[in-house]
């Protein structure tokens, strides 16, 4: 095909004769060129996203340990999820984490953005400092967490000891571990919501607030009735974004507690990772992954529809 195309247009070397070239051949050549450009990217996307996704779906209908022969089991993996107590516990942990993390990161982001959205000395330094933890990898954050919150030798308990408060188990106490993980991921992730809110705040014309102030609104009223409604689309966006990243929590758990103590911090993604790579139940783990995918998709669709109907316009 390429040879035919090439011989059909001896035009390139003689630009003056362009007009005589048949339009169909030109269109076909343009098409091919276009495909040539997108082919590498398409191959990457198909190879690294679509192909694994399809394969994972096929796996989810099989019983396979990664080595022996895979046995087709139909929807058995999916029905096993219904009665899997450990999975249900992992779902609960994930929901608890999401409920703690999402509102906190949105509020904290908003607060920090408002504080940083002013002209004061060294503002650039403050903004950089707030953003810095976001750049640190979750692995580094995790290792830092284990040092800070070690019950026997950690800094936090040392501080408590100095001020005379009782020692805490932190990451080794099943009741506190999830809270500590939430705190540490807030430390890293609040920067993200801050940056988004900061950008949104700077898009709001100053005249609006000024007008409200002239009309007699106090600062809080001006913020709550004028500025905040303008931030609604951004709020919807960061809430969805943070929810999706919260239900996919894995790295911080992996580097701190490995799902412990007593599986109190085992999230859905950690559970499916351990099902796949520790228990070698690749089929079941794929089914859990598809379950998680369905939930994420539903949340996104629901919120998108809602925001379209109410004209918040986040998407």
């Amino acid at each position, binding site marked *: 095909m390429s040879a035919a195309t090439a011989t059909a247009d001896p035009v390139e070397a003689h630009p003056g004769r362009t007009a005589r070239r048949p339009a169909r051949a030109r269109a076909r050549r343009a098409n091919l060129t276009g495909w040539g450009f997108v082919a590498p990217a398409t*191959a990457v996307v198909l190879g690294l996203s679509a192909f694994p996704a399809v394969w994972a779906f096929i796996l989810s209908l099989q019983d396979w340990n990664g080595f022996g022969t895979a046995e087709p089991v139909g929807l058995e993996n999916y029905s096993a999820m219904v009665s899997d107590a450990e999975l249900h516990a992992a779902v609960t942990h994930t929901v608890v984490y999401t409920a703690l993390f999402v509102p906190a990161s949105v509020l904290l982001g908003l607060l920090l953005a408002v504080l940083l959205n002013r002209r004061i000395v060294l503002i650039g330094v403050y903004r950089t400092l707030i953003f810095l933890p976001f750049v640190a990898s979750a692995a580094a954050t995790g290792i830092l967490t284990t040092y800070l919150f070690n019950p026997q030798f950690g800094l936090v308990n040392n501080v408590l000891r100095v001020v005379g408060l009782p020692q805490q188990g932190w990451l080794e106490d099943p009741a506190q571990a999830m809270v500590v993980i939430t705190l540490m991921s807030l430390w890293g992730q609040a920067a993200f919501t801050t940056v988004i809110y900061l950008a949104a705040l700077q898009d709001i014309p100053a005249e609006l607030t000024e007008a409200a102030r002239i009309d007699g609104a106090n600062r809080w009223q001006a913020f709550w009735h004028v500025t905040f409604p303008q931030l609604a689309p951004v709020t919807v966006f960061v809430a969805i974004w943070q929810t999706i990243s919260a239900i996919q929590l894995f790295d911080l758990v992996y580097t701190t507690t490995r799902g412990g103590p007593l599986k109190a911090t085992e999230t859905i993604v950690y559970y499916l990772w351990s099902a796949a790579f520790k228990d070698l139940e690749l089929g079941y783990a794929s089914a859990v992954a598809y379950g998680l995918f369905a939930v994420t998709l539903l949340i996104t669709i629901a919120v998108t529809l809602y925001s379209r109907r109410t004209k918040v316009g986040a998407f």
Partner: protein
Amino acid sequence: MPIPHRRRAAFGTLTLLAAATTLAACTSSPQGATTLDTEADVTLTWWTGQADAAQTILEGLAQEFEDEHPNVTIDISSGAPSTEDLLQKLSASFAGGTYPDVSYAFGSWASELADSGRTLDLTEQVADPEVGWEEFSGAARQTAQPTGDVTIGFPAVVDNLSLIYNTTVFDAAGVDYPTEDWTWEDFREAAKQLTDPSTNTYGYAYSVSGTEETTWQFWPHLWQRGGEILSDDGTTATFNSEAGVEALTFLRDMAVEDKSVYLDQTDTKFTQLFASDRIGMVTSGPWTLYDLGVAGTSYGVVQLPGVDGVHTTVSGPDLWVLFDHEDVNRAYWSYELIRWLTDAEQDVRWNVEYGNLPLRAAEIDTPEFAAQVEAMPGLDVMAANGVNATEPRPTVAGYVKVSEAVGTAISQVLQGQGEPQEALDTAAAQATAELADQ
């Protein structure tokens, strides 16, 4: 420089073609040799699962083998960022058809690998008296023959658990050092005396991560009391017997009542704390001695405490697994390479040189081993402790799930949640169900 249009079109088509060929190449595999020709050129891929100094030693040996046999090229690499990741890597390489000729493998993977149908069977070759197969420890041989019918490789590294004590902590508390004749009651008493909450010092440390680290530390307690992990036919979990309950009760009493045990959630922290004189005793293997040497900790090594004079320990033999590429030349040279490597003459320059235990008992008398003991005191005690590794860990498929069920039960009980009998019964029921699933 802009590319002329015509060439661009051709370039685009070429890219598509290239992408298609690459995809096609993933599924095709070349036909292997069917008649043995030991002079033919072969290239072997060898995943060592090692890093740093260990990898350097093996690379040197591979080079030596290549020099001796010029028609053999060895493509040697770690295979994965950590030994644990090799399992994932092997699974992926089977799917892609690009698996190695030889790979390091943890003993606990043996059944799964044998199950893959991609391993060579060396049973006939290792029957040759020249190989000296009987010189490997029983546990190591059994792991290389996970199903009993096929031999999937050679023992690569052997180890066992011994009692390592920190002399600085013992001296500070004025407690006598452990001896060979210690019972677990002596052990418990010493741990209690070493523990000092005001300085955050603990007598003993136990992993409660719920992994195999948690589980295998428990097996000596079970075996010494006469218990068994599984029934003889390997279908029923029997670790919840009276012996198991007694063993777990003993550990629970130390952790919960005496509070003399540092409960480690991570598997790694207790070695560091031991090295910095915060923990008096750990039960661990040769790899710990290396870390202690680096940290400059003063320590001693003795066999595990016992029950009625029985000091059974647990051993975790790892393997060199050989894979089948339906090519007799590659199979021949893979076997020759690993047989050569695990020979006493080479093993003193690899395992002994690196600080692992010798694979074969005969190496204990070599000057190389004596030099290593000089550098890592206690290594000789650990090597001698090999005779106490009489019980193999189960090699049935599904051991990983048995291990997980037990690990969870132990972690719960040591952290004060649940009773030994109840927790072990639950774990046994779960393990039996998992075994039936296989």
